[in-house]
């Protein structure tokens, strides 16, 4: 375990944060209101300067339904960290990280495509992998597995 994670764990204290260690990676569960300030802390004080990914998990029968998952990497400490924040089905919105990481914009667009997660502060949430006119979000559990939305009418 990298040396930076000890001081970091002290800063991420309960009750807001729940920190576990999974396969050598620090996993932090936090409420969505705390997301932006936590990432600011990670970036400014702990040098997590590389935004790796944002994706979501759809726990359909459960509530809150979604969990938005972030990964960061520190190029000076050579360590990764994972943030997870729950998001309800009624208003699946979290704060955008575009103000901190430019790369977040495109990945948030993909997450918005696939899961319908809204990102407050990201002005450009056009479809990136899907196309204009696609109805629904295909990686949600309630999207029918075989439902196609063809752009070209089928023959016959």
């Amino acid at each position, binding site marked *: 375990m990298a040396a930076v994670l000890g001081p970091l764990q002290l800063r991420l204290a309960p009750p807001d944060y729940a920190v576990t260690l999974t396969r050598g990676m620090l996993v932090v569960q936090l409420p969505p209101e705390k997301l932006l300030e936590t990432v600011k802390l990670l970036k400014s004080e702990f040098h997590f300067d590389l935004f790796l990914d944002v994706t979501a998990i759809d726990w359909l029968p459960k509530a809150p339904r979604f969990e938005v998952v972030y990964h960061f990497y520190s190029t000076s400490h050579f360590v990764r960290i994972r943030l997870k924040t729950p998001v309800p089905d009624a208003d699946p919105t979290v704060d955008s990280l575009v103000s901190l990481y430019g790369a977040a914009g495109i990945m948030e667009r993909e997450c918005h495509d696939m899961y319908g997660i809204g990102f407050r502060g990201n002005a450009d949430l056009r479809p990136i*992998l*899907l*196309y204009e006119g696609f109805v629904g979000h*295909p990686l949600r559990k309630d*999207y029918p*597995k*075989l*439902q*196609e*939305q*063809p*752009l*070209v009418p*089928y*023959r016959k």
Partner: protein
Amino acid sequence: MARTSTPIPIQSVGGKSAAFEYLTTKKDELVGWARKFSLFPYPFVTACCAMEFMAVSSSPYDTDRFGAALPRFSPRQADLLMVVGTVTHKQAPVLYKVYEQMCEPKWVMAFGVCATSGGFYQNYAAVQGIDRIIPVDVYVPGCPPRPEMVIDGIMQLQDKIARSRHPIISKDF
């Protein structure tokens, strides 16, 4: 018993004489022979089957033997549309447009199992076979197909071209 020789009447089909039909058949053979050895492929390459396409079009397998060696990167100059790889719904309008831009006569080869039937992709994204969008003449399954299979597909397409009619000349011949 004396044989009565009745002359066989030369039947005219659709107002045309039998001689016309004979010459048309010979003309179809000639044009078919010429066309089957001058297939200019347009590779519509979308996915990993491209590697196998490169292998089959390189010198060890020598598709020049079948006149199908020279890829034309304009659909207007091509006769054979080789759809190599997975076609998604987002890409389907592009494929359709490329097919529409090709001049008659044109043939389509579905190269690989994804172009043939969607392959192992059955979800919101993949077209379940390009024959849902455009007509296909020869299917080459495989993930990816061996070069021998592709060459076999080209030869089957050549047979199909040689056997089919080629109405390039008007009804007045």
